[in-house]
Structure formats: C-alpha cells, structure tokens
C-alpha cells in the first residue's frame, strides 16, 4: 500500500495531541519533522503500524478535544502515524456527529432537542449562533432540557488515556515499545490527582481557559448555556447520580442498591458494601460454572434484543479461535435512555467487576468498554475506577491472585446512535466507519477483530453480580417465569419524579407511573422502549412489563424507556422528531434505511404542516409511510432500519394519530 498524503501540515497543537496518544513518531516515515540517516535506509512500517488502526477513533478524539475540530493537516498526520489512507480517515471522521471537519469555535454547546428535552422545552432559541449545535438525546432526560458544553484545549481525556491503553494493550512488540517509549508518568499519581480534583479544575500548565473542559447544563436555560459556554470550567458540579434514582436507599433494590450509598470514587467503600464477592464466587465456580449459573438464572440481554446471556457466553466460550473478546456496550443512545449512565456514574466498580466475571467466563483477557462520547462524568469515574482496580490487583496480569489475566480499555464513541448496534460498534472500535455488518456470521463466531466476541449491555452485565451473589435459583425467582430478575426503567416526560426506577419484571406500567408521579387525567400516551419502541394508550396501563408481555401487546420493552406524554404535547411533532432522529442517525449503508427514513420524515412533515386541512393528502401520505415502513422492516440490514418505523406505526395504529 503506497499511501498518498497531501501537503497540509499539522499545527504544533495537533501534532502534540496525536503524539500524546501514540507516542512520538519513530521516523520521518511516521511524520517526524527531522530526517535522520537511518530514515533513508529503513522504513519500519507495515503490519506493525497498520495493526493500530483501532486507535484512529481515539486519535480523532485527541485532535477534536485539543483544537475543537479536525483539520486537513491534523487528520493527515494522524493517518500517516497509523498508516490509514487519508480518504478512509476522512470517511471515519465525517461519520461521527461530535467531530467537525471545518473550523468552529473552541467551545461548543450540544443542546439536546430530542423527545424528553423537547417536551420539557429545549431552548431552541439558544441554537442561534455558531457555538450551539442541536444534538440527539444526551441521556440526561431526568433533568431535561439538557445541554453539554465542550471546550477544546490541553489535557483532554485522550491525553490521559494513553497510559491505560499502553498498559492494557496486552502482548505485542508494538505495545511493549509504547510502554517504554516515553509514555511515562505513573498512572496512579495521575489518577490520584484526577480523583482529588475534578478535571475541570485540575492544576496544569495552562490557564483554565485553555484547558479541555466539559460541563453538563441541565436544566438548560438559554442563560445557563450561555454562561457555561463562556466559562465551562466554572460550572457547578452535577448533582450526584443518586439524584436520578428516586428510589435510592430502598432496601428492595437489587441493581441500584449501592447508588447513593456507595462512594463512586472509593474501591474500599465498594468492597465494604459487598463488592468483589461475586468475582470470588466466580473463581470458585470456574468459567463453566459461571456460565451455568447465568444460564440457569434465565438472564436475558437488557440492550433491547433480550437474547439469553448464558447462551451468548456459552457460544463464545466454546469457539476454538483465540483470543476471545468481551465488549461492554455502553453506547447508550436510544432517545430517553439514561439507566446505564446512572449505573456507571453511581456504581462504576460494579460494572468493572461484572466485566471481569464475564471475561473470565468466556475466556477473554481483554474487555472493551465502548462508552458514549456524551458521558464525560461516566468516563471520568470509570477511568478512575479502572486505575484503582489495576493497582489493587483486581485487573491486570493476575486478578485476585487467581492466575487469570484481564484488563479493560475504555473507548469513547463520538456521537453515532448506530454504534450501539453490536457489529457497528465492532467496526467503530476497529477504526472503521460504524456501519453494521451483515449477520451471519454472528459476533460469537466472528466479532471484534474477527474473533469470537460477547457484546453485552451495561445493565445486563451488572445483573450478573446478583446472579452470582444470590444464586441462580433465587435470582430466577424474581420477576416472571420467562423474564427473570429486575429491570431498570428510564422514566421521563411529564411526570413529577423522572429518573431511573427498578422493578421486578411483571410489575405493571400503572405501578411504575404511580412511583414516578404521573397525573392520569392528562395522560395522552406513553412511549415504551424509545424511538424504536411503541406507544401505549392510557387505557392499557395494566400492561405487565415483561419481554413477553410487551411483545404480546405489540410493543417492546427495548432499553427500558418510559416517556410520558400528556395532552400538552403535540403528538405530530413528537412523531416528526422521531423520524428526524432516524434520518440523522441512519448510517447510509443500505437503501431502505438511507432513503426510507428521509421519505418518512418528508411525509410526516407534510402531515404536520397540513394540520388536518387535507384529509385526502394525509391518507395518501399514511399509505406511503406504511409502504416504506414495511420495506424498511423487511429489507434493512440492521435493527435501526428494521425498527425505525415502529413508534410512528404504533402511533397510527394505537393512538389513532392523524385520524
């Protein structure tokens, strides 16, 4: 491969940002400024370098975090370092919503305009001007409307992540050289600093105004967003994760029991509250024993597809190809979903322990945690927790002295809903565009880097702790016969107490809405399962919340979204927003979804603009919606296109929208 790079040079900042991630360039072949005699004789390139393609996305983050956008020179330098063709690098960079390929101000505000925030009155007027960008759901629905302010500058997350990456990178000549190649500094001391002071105010060479900073603004009034844009490092801390759990402290909680009572920064506190007992139990049981327990518990995947977790683990563990990988899907992007964020922010060690157990069960020595790019606090907490676990021997070459090696690397998404689809997530991790692959082959056969992989949602993994803690039979006694355990629900919209709720499977929607404080008189509809889910009418609230119950009722639990809409919310605009969301988030790979989502959005916009004035035209548009929707469901490659029309269809069929 003879790559061709343009003449654009990286700026000093861009060079520094990339070098902080990858180490200094070894030769002019890799983009070093000064040519040495050796460079004329040797070019040590090829597989050794090309094998790092998976660092393309972290590299793009490093550039974007430092400068605020990705220039031709910066992208060219990154591609040269990783031996990635610049056209492909450009294709990857343009795939993600959080990256800009044209100059923009260093501080930008991502203002959520999605369902829950639109219901709560997102400050659309704040969107005027270059610094504010409309954003899909930021996962802060309990505090809607929300905005995320990001200031580019020194000391961004990728500059702190290199040590973890180098250490966690497992075997390989390159990784070894990285470790000795000046990526120095002790992770522990760095982590210690981070633990003591929030990153916004971390002491550094640069003035606060030049340092990378993120600030969550919720509720986002135009004034608050404006203030945060001017001084993101001075924004007050977010309320603790427990504030998103109205049930916090309830002794009946299983998954949420530590949220609010445990200090998310303290490993000792986590262990004092029962942490790492499940991992010890796992080592007693052995990998096959863990899989048997998980299978017997009847645990079903909580990411939306409800696939039996035990079967997935068994299938991965049984594959002869090595290595095996564990992937934690924390790319929580379904509009209205924020349960995984609350788990990761409030109880980060639980996820790490659960990933270690899962890795042990499937025979993986490496786990990837693919985290939404829009979750700075979860990133910070998890990174700190990982560092703590490494020093305490709970991750690394010899976990708990049991001779099992396991480490976890966090990878940040960059604003692409589709990357929550498991095969798109693999492509994104590998440094390709986040386009879903066709199945078969399934991930358990050929997943990440073409190897057997078990991808699991955050909530699914965290369920493994009570499965091992209380035993499979006690766990299976929770919930109903075919939906065992408890489920997290993300309640938002027009309720008095929005937040994450935990209920055993089988509880009714009515009970959940009671907990959340929903006024029944004004209730118009409940959107269950998110944008890809379905609507439920006020007279259907006795619906049992189980996988089979919701399926039988023609809707879906999905990721646990419960978005409550009262009569004040104009339904046509909600449906239009859903269609806009899918149009924006379609990856563009297959025709039914790429063009179909556009045609559906056009039809819904026509209907909304008509406002009932032309019933004949509306009937035609509904026929068109149904025709296109059917083809999308039948012929799209992945779940996004197949389910994109679900919510709108259920609004037509169950709510009688536009009738």
């Amino acid at each position, binding site marked *: 491969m003879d790559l061709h790079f343009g003449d654009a040079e990286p700026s000093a900042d861009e060079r520094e940002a990339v070098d902080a991630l990858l180490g200094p360039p070894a030769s002019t072949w890799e983009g070093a400024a000064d040519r040495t005699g050796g460079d004329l004789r040797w070019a040590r390139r090829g597989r050794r370098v090309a094998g790092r393609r998976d660092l393309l996305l972290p590299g793009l983050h490093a550039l974007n975090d430092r400068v605020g956008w990705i220039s031709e020179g910066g992208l060219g330098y990154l591609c040269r370092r990783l031996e990635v063709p610049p056209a492909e690098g450009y294709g990857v960079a343009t795939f993600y919503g959080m990256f800009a390929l044209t100059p923009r101000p260093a501080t930008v505000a991502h203002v959520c305009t999605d369902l829950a925030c639109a219901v709560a009155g997102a400050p659309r007027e704040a969107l005027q001007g270059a610094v504010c960008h409309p954003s899909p759901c930021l996962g802060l629905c309990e505090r809607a409307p929300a905005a995320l302010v990001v200031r580019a500058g020194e000391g961004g997350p990728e500059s702190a992540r290199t040590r973890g990456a180098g250490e966690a990178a497992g075997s390989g000549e390159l990784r070894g050289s990285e470790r000795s190649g000046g990526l120095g500094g002790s992770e522990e001391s760095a982590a210690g600093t981070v633990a003591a002071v929030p990153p916004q105010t971390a002491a550094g060479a640069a003035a606060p105004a030049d340092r990378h900073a993120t600030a969550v603004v919720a509720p986002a009034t135009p004034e608050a967003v404006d203030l945060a844009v001017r001084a993101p490092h001075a924004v007050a801390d977010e309320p603790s994760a427990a504030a998103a759990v109205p049930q916090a402290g309830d002794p009946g909680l299983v998954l949420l029991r530590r949220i609010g009572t445990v200090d998310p920064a303290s490993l000792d506190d986590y262990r004092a509250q029962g942490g790492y007992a499940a991992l010890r139990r796992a080592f007693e049981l052995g990998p096959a024993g863990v899989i048997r327990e998980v299978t017997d518990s009847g645990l079903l995947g909580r990411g939306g597809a409800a696939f039996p977790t035990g079967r997935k683990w068994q299938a991965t563990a049984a594959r002869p190809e090595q290595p095996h990988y564990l992937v934690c899907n924390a790319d929580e992007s379904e509009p209205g979903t924020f349960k995984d964020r609350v788990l990761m922010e409030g109880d980060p060690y639980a996820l790490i322990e659960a990933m270690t157990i899962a890795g042990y069960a499937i025979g993986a020595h490496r786990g990837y945690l693919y985290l939404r790019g829009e979750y700075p606090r979860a990133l910070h907490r998890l990174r700190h927790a990982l560092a703590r676990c490494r020093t305490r021997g709970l991750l690394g070459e010899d976990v708990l002295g049991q001779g099992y090696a396991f480490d976890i690397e966090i990878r940040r998404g960059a604003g692409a809903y589709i990357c929550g689809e498991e095969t798109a997530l693999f492509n994104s991790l590998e440094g390709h565009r986040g386009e879903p692959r066709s199945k078969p082959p399934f991930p358990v056969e050929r997943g990440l880097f073409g190897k057997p992989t078990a991808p699991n949602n955050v909530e699914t993994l965290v369920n493994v702790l009570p499965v091992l803690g209380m035993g499979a039979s006690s766990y299976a006694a929770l919930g109903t016969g075919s939906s065992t355990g408890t489920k997290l629900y993300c309640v938002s919209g027009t309720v008095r107490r929005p937040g994450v709720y935990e209920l055993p499977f089988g509880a009714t929607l009515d009970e959940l809405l009671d907990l959340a404080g929903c006024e029944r008189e004004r209730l118009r509809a409940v959107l269950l399962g998110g944008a890809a889910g379905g609507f439920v009418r006020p007279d259907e609230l006795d619906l049992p919340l189980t996988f089979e119950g919701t399926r039988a009722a023609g809707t879906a639990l999905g990721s646990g979204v419960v978005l409550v809409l009262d009569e004040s919310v104009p339904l046509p605009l909600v449906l239009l927003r859903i269609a806009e969301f899918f*149009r924006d988030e379609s990856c563009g790979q297959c025709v039914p979804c790429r*063009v179909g989502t556009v045609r559906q959005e056009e039809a819904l916009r026509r209907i909304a603009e008509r406002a009932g004035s032309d019933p004949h035209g509306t009937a035609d548009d509904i026929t068109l919606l149904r025709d296109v929707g059917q083809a999308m469901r039948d012929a799209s490659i992945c779940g996004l296109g197949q389910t994109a029309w679900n919510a709108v269809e259920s609004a037509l069929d169950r709510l009688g929208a536009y009738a």
Partner: protein
Amino acid sequence: MTAVPLRPPRRLLEFTLDGEQTRAPEGATILDACRAAGKDIPTLCQGDTLTPKNACRTCVVEVEGARTLVPACARGAEAGMEIRTDTPRVRHSRKVVLELLASSVDLSTTPGVQDWLKEYGAEPARFGPDAATVNETPRVDNDLYVRDYDKCILCYKCVDACGEQWQNTFAIATAGRGFDARISTEFDAPLTDSACVYCGNCIEVCPTGALSFKTEFDMRADGSWDPSRQTETTTVCAYCGVGCNLTLHVQDNEIVKVSSPHDNPVTHGNLCVKGRFGYQHVQQGRR
C-alpha cells in the same frame, strides 16, 4: 486459450427454491443458485468480481424461518433452506427500494433498471415533487474520467475496487452519514490531489454510469453517444508483458471506452492507467 483453474470437487447442498428441489455447490450464494436455475433476480450493488456488500437490497428473497428478507447476493445457500424469490413481500420490498432509489438519484444510465421499474410497478413520482435528491453536479477534475455523484447509489463497489479488494490505492471512501453519505476523497479534494492512479477500475465496476470515461461523458452531453453504433473488440494490451485483455469500444472508428473481461483469470477486469486510458496513439492519423 483460457486457463480454467481446477478446484477440489464441492459438496452439493439440497434446498428448495420456489417450491422446487434444487442443488448448488457448497459455498454458492442464493443468487448463484437462482441464476443457475434461470431465475432473474435484480441486482445493483452485486459485482461478479467483488465481495458482496449487500447495500442496495434489490436482490432480497424470502427464506423460511428468517424474520426479515435476506439478500440473495450475500447469503450462502444452506441445506434444507426454503427460498422464495417472488412472493408479494419480496416484490413489495424490491418495488419500494427501486422507488426510493429512482426518486433520489438519476438512474437514466443504469442498465436494466427501467425494465425492473416497470416489472415491479414502481412509481418514483409518488414521493412528490419536493422529495429530496442527492443533488450533486458532475465532478470534472481531470481529463480521463468524470464522477457524477448525482447518479451514485452508494453501492460501495468503486470503494472496494479502489481499496483492498483490487487496486489497494484507497483514493476514495464513503464520507458523511445517512442520506448525506457520498463517495469522496479526503476533504473532497479533486482527484488530481488524491491518491488516485487513474486505473479506472472503479469505472469498470460502477453499475450506474456515475463513473464514466470523459469521452463517454462528453459524447452523452453533445448527444453523440450511441451504443448501437459501437463495436467491441477484445485484444491484448501491448504496453507490458502481463498481457491483460482489453475490450475496445469503438464508435465511428474512434475508441470511446476501454473495458476488460471480468472472467479473465489473471486480471478479473482490472487494468492500469496505460491499458485503460492510453489508447490515443492508436487513433492519431500519423500512424
């Protein structure tokens, strides 16, 4: 003489195709089986020399037990499968996919598509006059070939041919997302500033005429392009010793386009810039 590579014999799989027992060798796709049985399945993104990308979804068929329709081009035939290629569900999907494509891009130079639009009763106009189109203007940035992305259906074939499947040049990739996705060089730079080596292997695989010889593009513009007046002559490239086959497309005693037979066991339809574009010396009167 064409060399026929020998392979070990392949096991035959038995399955049902539209109610008839059919057999196909192991490793064959459903599309291979359909074509062997003489069934016409519309395809756009499928290429005989490329790994299936199954992006266009016109070749979908119904397989018993599958929740969704499956792409015939990519899905391998399996023993015991029950495949139906012409059910109302299949016809509906194909019709809508063709409508979606025809309403968003210019399919006027796509071979076969007009017949399919008729066969499946597709009405692209039903999306109204304001339906969004890709709305691109032809990129004419070099003397050899033109990229008219208004005709591009994003089949990924040019990207695959330029990249790891054939040329390993990686001058183009898909950029952007969703309806805004386009085939592009880095930062949409002109081809002359990109890694392009002008092998033209992307033109060879383009199913819609979005990529075309500059000669063809100019002749279409002035109305003189007329395939009925063209002859095709397959010969051997005289530039080097590899011996690639060239098919010269000649209209009015002028070479207007060069392609290469896809079944050539050495080159599989691929050429280099000399074979593809270096034909001017033939038609200069001084010879």
